[in-house]
């Protein structure tokens, strides 16, 4: 059974049709590359899945059950995490404080509960180890490389036992070496059975890690096929409209 299934999703903002009748499925342990030009509806689709706003029409099924998200917190509680393009990290805090932000571990009792940094650091260390990242829990994020920051953002999604991770342009603003590091992180997520949606403009990255590719153009889904049956040339054609559908 698909972990996530969208059926006939449409979204309009006034007269603008951002998405029309899009079907989308996501299996456990699968990386789906979501591609499309600016304004094709990628962000709208991601925001609907992440609970930023509801669809105008259509149904969302999470592990077969219909769900209605009103706020991002609802989606997160259901196991859907988003890694934002800017990573949404606090540079002045440690890696572990970021991982546990708004979900801090505490010790003590009653009103005398204090932060348990030891436990948070220990758990973060485990999470980074699972991701095979060298990020140190007590380091301040300000001092970190782009790849390490990604690891922090991804470890955060891991903490909550997410089923689905939506990655918004994770490789847009980092160096080539770090891109490699991030793609490795995505593979780690897949190994652990997490479904990943990778939104990216970078064709090589999508073709390196994705199992399947979905292309949106002007709010319509124009392709949805295993990566092996497509090619960068075809996808470029689909994005620009040179190829109608595939």
């Amino acid at each position: 059974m698909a972990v996530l299934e969208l059926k006939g999703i449409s979204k309009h903002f006034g007269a603008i049709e951002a998405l029309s009748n899009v079907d989308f499925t996501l299996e456990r342990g699968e990386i789906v590359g979501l591609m499309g030009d600016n304004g094709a509806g990628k962000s709208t689709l991601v925001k609907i899945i992440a609970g930023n706003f509801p669809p105008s029409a259509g149904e969302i099924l999470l592990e077969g059950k219909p769900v209605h998200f009103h706020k991002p917190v609802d989606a997160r509680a259901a196991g859907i995490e988003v890694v934002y393009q800017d990573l949404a990290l606090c540079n002045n805090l440690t890696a572990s404080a970021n991982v546990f932000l708004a979900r801090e571990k505490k010790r003590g009792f009653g009103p005398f509960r204090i932060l348990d940094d030891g436990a948070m650091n220990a758990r973060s260390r485990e999470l980074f180890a699972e991701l095979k990242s060298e990020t140190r829990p007590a380091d301040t994020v300000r001092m970190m490389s782009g790849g390490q920051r990604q690891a922090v953002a991804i470890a955060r999604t891991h903490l909550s036992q997410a089923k689905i991770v939506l990655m918004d342009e994770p490789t847009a603003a980092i160096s080539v070496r770090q891109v490699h590091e991030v793609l490795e992180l995505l593979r780690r997520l897949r190994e652990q059975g997490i479904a990943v949606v990778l939104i990216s403009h970078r064709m090589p990255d999508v073709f390196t890690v994705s199992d399947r590719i979905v292309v949106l153009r002007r709010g319509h889904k124009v392709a949805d096929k295993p990566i092996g049956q497509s090619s960068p040339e075809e996808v470029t054609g689909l994005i620009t409209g040179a190829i109608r559908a595939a």
Partner: protein
Amino acid sequence: MAIDTELPRASQNAWQQLLASQAFWVTIFVFLIPVAMTVVEPSFSAAFWKEDNFFNVTRNFAFIAIMALGQVAVIITGGIDLSVGSVLAVSGIVLGLLMSNDYSFAFSAIVAILAGIICGLFNGYLISYLRLSAFVVTLGMLSIGRSLALAISNNKFFYKFGHDQHILIELGGGKTFGIANPVLVLVALTLLMGFVFRYTTWGRHLYAIGGNEHAARLTGVPVDRMKVSVYVLSGFMTAVSAILTVGWLGSVTNGLGIGYELRVIASTVIGGTNLAGGEGGAYAAFIGAALIEVIRNSLLLAGVDPYWQGTFVGLFIIFAVLLERIRGRKVN
């Protein structure tokens, strides 16, 4: 309570951490200035190192430092509270009015604290929920508070505080174990706030908001409520300071606290609090206020015309921000 103003990094050793902290250098300055003055001007030492003077210096900065403890929480979130001087007057006048009408000290103090909290709520609500700039809202409150103090007092001056007068005067002007009571209150509040900043979720979230407000919101930090809480804290601390100040002065006028906002903000900045948010701590507020008072006192004792005090304080603020800029450049 840690000396540093940032959360500790395990990979940095304690010594490096100490050297990188502005509060540490300010602490050294606080002791170095009088020593240097003594060397340059031996007659100075007789005046400065007297027990009386120590008592005065510590007491004088306690009033500002208590307010700075609230201000530092506001500044850590990236906000600012310019209204503290006026709120001090509102709380002081409320206290004076009630006590002069023979209400008990306890009741009057509670109402005075409530007045401070209400001013903070007003600031916090407009800033958090109506998304107005902290600068504008608290500047407005600076004017409103001063005018409220005038209106409530009807421009009268309170110096008789009813049957509980002795409690008020003892609290603000008295001493316990040879230390001025306001100083004891300050030390207790500094330790408490130092602990709260470092070890509670509330404290952690303050730094998160200052570091990246958008991220804090996305991860589920209750940013709006947190912001209201810091302005309320600032109002509370200001009211506490008002009670002690009135007790020390033995009187209160609606001119109380004029220009204090600058001294309070200067204290936090000099202690190493980043005005852009995300950095600072209780000790920063404490030591920054101490430094200003030591400088003020030293200049006074050295015979420098008091008219120049503002110039020195102003230069120190600019110097502190410059220092922060230099440290920031090293980090990035």
